[in-house]
């Protein structure tokens, strides 16, 4: 190993970094949860046709467009500094959660719209013809198939949320990147710290993807090919 690198400080800080990785996971998971709920609502609002629902539809269209077409960092800064200018001051955690949830919801809205379109209308009709209520047909027949259709993009978004949460560093959140930054600047071992943090990100993401794959196998084994 090149003598210019000093790994000992970063290895000593490993427990702190791993703890911070849990913050990262929490933020990502929570923002996904909120993103899924809001994304579903946006997906439905976009397909509202009633004239009275036009404002909801336009809100949804604008939300999706902004979330998908502007840098995630700007979205975060909006909740941090933009709202700050209006006198609304949020904690670093709240800023990151709001920013990521906003972003997730925008992407997931499109994902869910595609997912619902992937289930043929005939499935709903067949369920109704058996005497199921619309609600039963939705929860028992349509939604499970939507879930399979969106599983992959949902996993991707979760990975994306983990990586995006590193922006928390810029608003003072001590998730993995923030913690790494704080410790690295104290010891000036910038490269070593970020290299180790990158490995942790890598492992976290790989584990998530593996877990999602295992779950998909458990859930969707035997179903007709997508």
């Amino acid at each position, binding site marked *: 190993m090149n003598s210019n690198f000093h790994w000992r400080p970063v290895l000593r800080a490993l427990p702190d970094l791993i703890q911070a990785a849990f913050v990262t996971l929490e933020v990502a998971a929570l923002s996904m949860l909120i993103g899924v709920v809001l994304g579903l609502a946006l997906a439905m609002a976009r397909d509202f046709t009633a004239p009275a629902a036009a404002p909801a539809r336009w809100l949804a269209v604008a939300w999706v467009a902004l979330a998908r077409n502007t840098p995630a960092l700007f979205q975060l800064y909006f909740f941090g500094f933009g709202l700050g200018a209006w006198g609304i001051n949020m904690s670093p955690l709240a800023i990151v959660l709001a920013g990521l949830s906003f972003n997730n919801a925008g992407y997931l809205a499109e994902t869910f719209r595609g997912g619902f379109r992937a289930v*043929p209308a005939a*499935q709903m*009709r067949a369920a*109704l*013809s*058996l005497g199921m209520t619309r609600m*039963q047909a939705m929860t028992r027949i349509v939604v499970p*198939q939507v879930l*399979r259709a969106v599983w992959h993009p949902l996993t991707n978004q979760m990975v994306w949320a983990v990586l995006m949460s590193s922006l928390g560093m810029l608003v003072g959140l001590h998730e993995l990147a923030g913690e790494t930054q704080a410790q690295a600047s104290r010891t000036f071992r910038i490269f070593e710290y970020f290299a180790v943090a990158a490995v942790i990100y890598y492992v976290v993401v790989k584990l998530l993807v593996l877990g999602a794959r295992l779950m998909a196998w458990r859930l969707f084994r035997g179903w007709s090919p997508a």
Partner: protein
Amino acid sequence: MIQIENLHKKFGALEVLRGIDLAVNKGEVLSIIGASGSGKSTLLYCINGLEPISEGRVLVDGVDVHARGTDLNRLRQRLGMVFQQWNSFPHLTVLENVALAPRIVRGLPRAKAEEVARRQLEHVGLGDKLAQYPAALSGGQQQRLAIARALAMEPEYMLFDEATSALDPELVGEVLDTMRMLAAEGMTMICVTHEMGFAREVSDRVAFFHQGRIEEIGRPEEMFGKPRSPKLKRFLAKVL
């Protein structure tokens, strides 16, 4: 008994059903034939309330299907329907496909629902496929699954919308045989079909649809043997 009185159905400006009067008695097998677009599927959808109607009435055992306040979910339990496209539920096993509605609609306990499902699946010859997913079935088997699924609700009537026309030719026979079996058991059936052999041999009556009207209706011998309407003659000349 299914009674249809002066039924009109419009999709926007397009009038697809233009005054249908028809009564189907308990135990009867009625086949509906006619050119594509003549409104045959639409009629079936109007009978079980999957499509709203524009004018007229549909009564199923005296219950007005399209009246405000009619419990359609309850009514549909009396009306089994099999569609042209086999729409088995891909995320459920064969047994679950059939047992689900008896459980959540009829409210049977799981064990009882599965017993009903197993009986119906054996009835249509799928007793050895219970744990399979539909993806592993042929089109003909999926269509028999759809029949078993409808029968598990113990309906009074069965509506078939071209149950065989999406199937490969070699799979048509097994589905028609299942339908023949039901007819022989006394099930009341309305079958939209392009299978003239089936219509001729199994039906008590055949109705010929032309542009949203019943152009001619009668016993199969009359309809196929000595059709009166020139339109029916032309139709038969084309399909036979």
